[in-house]
């Protein structure tokens, strides 16, 4: 089991309210990602669930039990930290066994579970090393090992991949997703990287300034962003947001169109523009086009390799079925 429910949970540091009262339900077995720009309160929210921070008001319910005043050690949750937070004076074996030792399990059971976790995480050959002798990816695996041995109600990940290099990050992302499929345990994952959020989550919680902007599946967020913040935050490259006269034509204060939903050619189209920088990724090409409709350049994503000279005149046509409309407050117009 591992259902986590936040009822009107808020957090203030002194007089500064970082999280105004919010409600959120995380169902058993779900992979939920908290995503938002740095300083949006996503880590604080995770620490409130963990019990590492006290809530200012409201209740944290774990499996229907009010855990608000239960210390972190007794909540039955495991956490993986950004800095790995391994015990530097203990071997990998002792690091992984630590939560079991604290739980008072006998030595044989500790050994059995450590061996099992080490096998799952490919750490068997490193059990007698110290954390200082491991690479970043291995350390991260030890941290995950320490979390899985005790079979917690839920895993909490606090930006676990941000200290790894790009290649390793993709690999670990897959490993964590696979772990979730295998264990089927609730996971709450904090990141500022929307690619991680989109690829891993069952449900994404987008936060800004401590406020939940939208909760939904990755595709819901991509297809129907509730406001301009979510629209601009989810998706890479960013959605083009255009205001002014062009938006008024559609009866909106702002219209949004994703780079992949704009057709580009040299002959004719709705908007005319000049090609700026192009980014060639092989599989895709991103064009940044200076257009009359918006002071910001419009980003266009073309599949495969396409070439337009720097400074060339081109025509853009947004596909009408993919146009997002937002009112003056930035909210989606249905």
């Amino acid at each position: 089991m591992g259902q986590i429910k936040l009822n009107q949970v808020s957090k203030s540091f002194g007089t500064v309210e970082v999280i105004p009262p919010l409600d959120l339900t995380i169902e058993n077995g779900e992979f939920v990602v908290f995503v938002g720009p740095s300083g949006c309160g996503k880590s604080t929210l995770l620490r409130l669930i963990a019990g590492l921070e006290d809530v200012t008001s409201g209740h944290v319910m774990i499996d229907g039990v009010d855990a608000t005043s239960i210390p972190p050690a007794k909540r039955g949750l495991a956490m993986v930290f950004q800095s790995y937070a391994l015990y530097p004076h203990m071997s990998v074996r002792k690091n992984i066994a630590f939560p079991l030792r604290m739980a008072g399990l006998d030595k044989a059971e500790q050994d059995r579970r450590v061996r099992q976790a080490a096998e799952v995480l490919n750490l068997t050959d490193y059990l007698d090393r110290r954390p200082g002798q491991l690479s970043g990816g291995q350390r991260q695996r030890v941290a995950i090992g320490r979390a899985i041995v005790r079979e917690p109600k839920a895993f909490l990940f606090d930006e676990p991949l941000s200290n790894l290099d790009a290649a390793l990050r993709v690999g670990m992302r897959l490993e964590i997703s696979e772990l979730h499929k295998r264990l089927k345990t609730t996971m709450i994952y904090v990141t500022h990287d929307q690619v991680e959020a989109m690829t891993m989550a069952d449900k994404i919680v987008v936060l800004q300034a401590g406020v939940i902007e939208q909760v939904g599946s990755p595709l819901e967020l991509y297809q129907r962003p509730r406001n301009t913040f979510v629209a601009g935050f989810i998706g890479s490259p960013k959605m083009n947001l255009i205001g002014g006269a062009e938006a008024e034509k559609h009866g909106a204060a702002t219209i949004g169109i994703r780079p992949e939903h704009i057709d580009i050619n040299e002959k004719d189209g709705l908007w005319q523009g000049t090609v700026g920088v192009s980014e060639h990724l092989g599989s895709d090409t991103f064009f940044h086009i200076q257009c009359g409709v918006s002071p910001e350049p419009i980003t266009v994503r073309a599949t495969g390799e396409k070439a337009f000279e720097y400074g060339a005149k081109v025509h853009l046509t947004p596909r009408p079925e993919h146009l997002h409309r937002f009112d003056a407050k930035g909210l989606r117009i249905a």
Partner: protein
Amino acid sequence: MARAVTPRRKALNTFAAWLIGLIIFFPILWIFVLSFKTEGNAILPPLDVLRAPWTFESYGIVQDRSDYFKHFGNSVILAFGSTLLGLIIAVPAAWAMAFVPGKRTKDILMWMLSTKMLPAVGVLYPIYLMFIKLGLLDSRIGLVIVLMLINLPIIVWMLYTYFREIPGEILEAARMDGATLREEILYVLTPMALPGMASTVLLNVILAWNEAFWTLNLTAAKAAPLTAFIASYSSPEGLFYAKLSAASVMAIAPILIMGWFSQKQLVRGLTFGAVK
């Protein structure tokens, strides 16, 4: 650009380092030399002193006239006792300030350090009078308390800086792993802070061992440590160089030997955790 180290520059640096080292060490060396001379030879011009015969005479007289081992025992009790008592108070204090800092933590630390800037004589009379009233004059327990109080700011500061080096996330990880506060301190914090704690103990033992103002003013005979033992050889009738030197060598030898064997820890301690 890195500066090129030519052999000549290297030789020059080595020479300068040795020269400065010798100048600093010279008084101790000279005390050592004088302690092996007779009282008459010790006041000769320097070169004649070196040429004079070497003898253990002064050491014999010093041991006969005043009980070295009694003073040594008192020094050990005062140095280690005050350090241990200080640790018992300072560990929880430093833990609290390092890991659950409040709004006034920095102020408290500065205030504690500021007490070290107060001239000790300023509080001599109040403390002296309190000692008379409490019957603590010339008692080991009284001196242990005073020495502990004098070094407490340093112990707290040192432990605080060492504890601050330990990432808070590791302690939070221990808490998430189900460790109670006691287990967290026992299995995670202490092993990680052990090198720092060792440096702290070492430095404070030395400071307490060498402390002369309070030990001289608050003791007479019973609780007198080695500082009083040395001081007893500078009497109104004049200085007895050879005996004073012999007494000094006997007093500083234990701490010098201890310091020699723990140089690495000591340097770490003196840099207050700035060097890892």
